């Protein structure tokens, strides 16, 4: 069997359309994620056609999708929950790095 060519999306980032497809959403939904700062783009002044998204963005978009669906969270609330989750993981990693986890 021939091994399939693979790409880590951080070396070939996703467009708005590709990210939307990957999470089963419309392009407009991805733009809303940027608006509420769940996703951050390097070049916000550029038109959305030029925006790029990496693994961490896909992970956050999927998590936002689940929060929206599972808990009926609106995207502003989802943004806060995701930030708190990130902070929790950062602190746990810090504890781990100091042998406290």
């Amino acid at each position, binding site marked *: 069997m021939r091994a399939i060519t693979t790409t*880590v999306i951080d070396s070939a980032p996703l467009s708005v359309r590709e990210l939307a497809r*990957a999470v*089963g959403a419309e392009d407009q939904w991805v733009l809303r994620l940027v608006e509420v700062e769940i996703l951050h783009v390097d070049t916000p002044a550029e038109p959305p056609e030029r925006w790029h998204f990496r693994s961490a963005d896909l992970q956050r978009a999927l998590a936002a999708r689940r929060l929206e669906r599972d808990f009926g969270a609106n995207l502003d609330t989802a943004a806060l929950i995701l930030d708190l989750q990130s902070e*929790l993981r950062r602190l746990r990693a810090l504890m781990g790095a100091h042998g406290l986890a």
Partner: protein
Amino acid sequence: MDFKDYYSALGVARDAGDDDIRKAYRKLARKYHPDVSKEADADAKMREINEARDVLQDKEKRAAYDQLADHVARGGSPDGGFRQPPPGWDEGFEFRRGPNAGPADQADFSEFFSSIFGNRGGMGGAGGGPRAAYRERGEDHHAAIEIALEDALHGAERQISLRAQEIDDQGRPRLVERKLDVKIPAGVRPGQYIRLAGQGLPGHGGEPAGDLYLEVRIAPHRLYRIEGHDLYMTLPVTPTEAALGAHVTVPTPAGGQVDVTIPKGARGGMKLRIKERGLPGKTPGHLYLLLEIALPPADSDAARAAYEQLAKAAPFNPRQHLGG
């Protein structure tokens, strides 16, 4: 394969309404969410309730599941074992992905779920026949792949098995298992996604297939812990090495060894950095060594005498700051 009782997984009655299911799900999801739960089996429970919710909140899937549950209750084997859905169990049902369902949701669902609904959010065309005029790009598909740290360091090829629902020439769904040989690039990190173009669900009406996204997970390693690009390892040193300084030999993740200088007066918890010996990449990570002072056992007269001599030679009160 055991039959899964989705109603008892959520703790709801067979006639529970959408609202009851939603409330039960939310309550359990808060209890078992991996970020906050103290339960030992939180991950498995979360997967179970996600799966139950996915079926019971979708009218079509729920109706098909109920029919299957009735069938098993009537004619199931005495031990309640479940082998496979009866032929034609899904006739008349057509599953579609709900407007709020993401394609990643089924990545971790059970074999039981896959045997009924396939490893995807919905299946089109069951009993509906081919849709000649229907044109749509295939949906993207998600799965996870767990690799060893060594695979992330050196790159590797791994075979994965995926099961997905496909529609045959008669428009009937069938479960197809396929194997893919996947190249793991060196330097890949946990949480990154590998994209396999065209390996998602097939398109309709000549449109291209979707893509497959594999979320990378790295199995725990006996020596190293991963943090972004960096690797952490606990390095035990003796009190003598910590106090007087020393040169020690340490294995490196990519193989081989490196000489490390322990500075004089080193303390437990001190972090030493070995530059660019972490995960490879455009910006290579570092290897961090966390010092841990390991006490020589006082298990002989000579060792006990040496400790007593040290106490006399270097009087030291580590509790001074406590007023002790």
